[in-house]
């Protein structure tokens, strides 16, 4: 099992969600986050006051996947989240030792 964390543009979230649903990904955790990588911040001046956004709004997706789904999910996110501009985000993968469903204590991939 792998844990996938993807930080994407908020504007791409709906497309990514729809695309993942199409390939059978049912569950994910979504968080509104702020951050930046290479993308610079954004400054607007309104009525003499400067509004600087150093940490840009992003959406973070988290999901734990059975090994056989990992590649297709990564491909799907890459395709649906990409705009080609700086700030499109990143995907992180890490191995998961165990998953347990609290309701019935199922373990492993059955618990996903």
């Amino acid at each position, binding site marked *: 099992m792998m844990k996938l964390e993807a930080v994407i*543009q*908020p*504007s791409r*979230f*709906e497309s990514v969600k729809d695309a993942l649903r199409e390939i059978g990904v049912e569950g994910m955790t979504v968080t*509104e*986050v*702020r951050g930046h990588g290479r993308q610079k911040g*954004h400054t*607007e*001046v*309104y*009525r*003499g006051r400067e*509004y600087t*956004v150093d940490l*840009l*709004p992003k959406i973070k997706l988290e999901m734990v996947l059975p090994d056989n789904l990992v590649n297709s999910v990564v491909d799907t996110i890459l395709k649906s989240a990409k*705009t080609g501009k700086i700030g499109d985000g990143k995907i992180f993968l890490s191995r998961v030792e165990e998953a347990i469903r609290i309701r019935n204590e199922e373990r492993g991939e059955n618990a996903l």
Partner: protein
Amino acid sequence: MTTAARPGWNRGVPPSKNMQESPTPLSVLGPQAEAERQKIRQSFESGTSARATLHALCELADHHVGQIFDEVLRVQNRAPDGLCLIALGGYGRRMLFPYSDLDILFLFGTDKTEQEFRPLISEFSRTLWDLGFRVSSAGRTLEECKRIEEDNAEFHLALLDRRLLAGDPTLFEKLDEKVLPGSEKQARPFLLAQLHKLTRDRLTRYGNTIFHLEPNVKESPGGMRDYQATIWLRQLAEEKKGIRNITAAEEEMCSSAVDFLSATRCFLHYNNGRNDNTLTYELQEAAAERALGIGDGVARTPSDWMRQYFRHARTLNRQLLRYLEQKAPVPLTLRQRLMNAARASKIEAGDGKYFQVRDGLLEVVDLSALSDRAITYSLFAESARTGTPLSREAERSIGYVLIHPELPPKNTEMPWEKLREILGSDYPSLALRPMQRLGLLMEILPEFGLIDSLVVRDFYHRYTVDEHTLRTIEHLQDLADSPDERGAHFAQLWKTAERRELLVLALLLHDVGKGMPVENHVTGSVAALDSAAKRLKLSPEEKSEIQSLIEHHLDMSATVQRRDIFDPATVAGFAESVTNQERLQRLCLLTYADIHAVNPEALTPWKAEMLWQLFVATSNYFSRTLDRDRLHAHDEVSLLGRIKAFAGAGSTEEIERFLEGFPRRYLAVHSPEEIAAHFGLYRKLSEEPVQAQVAATRHGFALTLLTPDRPALFSTISGVLAGWGMNINKADAFANAAGIILDTFYFTDLHRTLELNPSEITRFGKTLEDVVNGKTTLETLLKGRVSASRGRSPKVTVETRINFDDSSSAHCTLLEIVTQDRPGLLHEMGSALARLGCNIEVALIDTEGHKAIDVFYLTAQSKKLTAQKQELLREVLQGTLS
């Protein structure tokens, strides 16, 4: 209600004998109890009333409690002297729901009897548990009952519903007649304060509304706990002593509400198989199907059945709030008293004979006057204007008059002028809430009735549609008083929003389509606006603005969530759909309120920040692209027709010539009626080359001036205003294709010269014409005036920012200035621009407190300003503004 035992309770030595040794063993009693429970359940499901069901459950519990108690005593070979069992809370009131706990107090005569009976009590509780009764027990000696446990008010409140179950009757008599009357009297202020606190905390936990999509029929506002708290408030207020503070009709409504909610709670317990009181969507369907609590057996839709539920919940909640308000145990602070006094004096000056302020609430003085709706409406308008809520008694009085035919109402129609006063005030929600509760809102705006108590199943929404709608307005109203992190940016937008009534009416109607059989609720809401606009006689402009807000009410939220708001193309596209700054401001506030009212967590700081960024970017887009979008009058067929109708004179071609080439924003900031008046002035230019008009507005005066372009015109006009001691708050300057300048200045009359001497308006107009025509010099007028005002030091310091922008406009250089506002400022800036040969093509002047925010579109010899000129201008302006 928890009546937790003292520490150490039920930890006694295990009994030496137990019930298995009794002649009626558990193996017999258990199935008997269960069979009885099933019988009661079947009886309820086949139509027996909740009242009878609760009574039967209580009888069953009483029977077993008595039987087990006797058995335990018998097995232990004890008499019950010095011990009695007392039912508390709901069980004490004989309102025992299928899976509720049995709240029982074990009362001991002395410490010694407590020690002796401890093992017996443990056995008793265990046995009842084994029979399927959940006992929530507490134990006290008679002596302990005299003391008030300050950290356990719940116990003392539950004790108000005491009822002897079994044991020593003389001990109970001592408690009931000697001990408690004294201690309860002494503890009354404490208990009242605690009951208020517990109740307020609970109501706050549920958002202070009955209108939850999946309410908890026990704990939510309007639930059974409201009823219980009301009973206690009445008991503590000593109503038993003969002062009836509730009418027979109200008592009857309460009774039927309790029956309905009791039936619902029984139904939930039976369906959930536990003490779970959440009225889920699935159970709403099942309850509606069997017309639960209605009794006619005719299946309802879940929405219709929930309307019944909310009607009853409203009755219980209204009663509770009335008692909470009446018996406020906390004295008012000095500040509150001073505020009341200040507010009271304001109202004395208005309609003092009909209502007054007491304890910070509006009270009705002359009840008979309420049959005149005009007076009732002015009570609501007063509440919305001053921020003083109506007392529950005032609301009750209005409610009484509304349903009593011996008081025939007059002046029932609420004209748009009066409704506008309420909707456009600082506290619209303070009037709209009671108006909704009393049914007046639906009378005035029947379209709102479509969403009355309407449950629309939605994963995100927590409240019914009407509640969501009223919350949107409350969230805006709350922006005026120190909003939280999410609202901080939007507070200024709310404070400066013009024509708020349009925004608030748009909010009232934005979701009414959800109560219509239409595919897209926005279509329905717009249709509702059509009928409301006709009835209220809204002007076409008012209707058009509200319609636009309704049609676009989801756009800003969608753009924030689905588009890259930092992409200029997104901003340009969004700006195009919004069309102008004023609408953007309203739409932004509407979106803020709409998201906020979905549920308490819906508007995250993240979303609020995104919304604000889109607003700022779009606002800047508007101010930087003003000269891009010019009017081609020939294409504006409907506008031409409307202006012609208002003007009453002049040909269409003439109107076209007048309008041609004005920035499109001109249409956004002036109504067709105003434009027609401008056209009237335009037609007189051939007689007199300077046409000026001064009119009083809501916040001050407006000066409109039309003249062929001439050097330093803007600085000259602002100089005349400064010379007369007027403070310019806002201005715009536009030019049409023929070089006719139309300047509008909104100003306040600092010395009340024009207000106190109306004849001065004519002299002011004459001075203006003379100065513009060069017949009088400005210097004479200004002498002394500006220098005097310069001596005063400002309360807030604003740093000066001067910014040039060459990229936003194809023909002009944009100059954006933010600086400290002061009298004569605009004249000084205008003069500096004129001295350096800069021509103002378009100007937008605004103020925000002590801050002047100005945008000028400049040319020099019909071209953009060169870099050298910009530097020179920056230097000069910095010198002028410092």
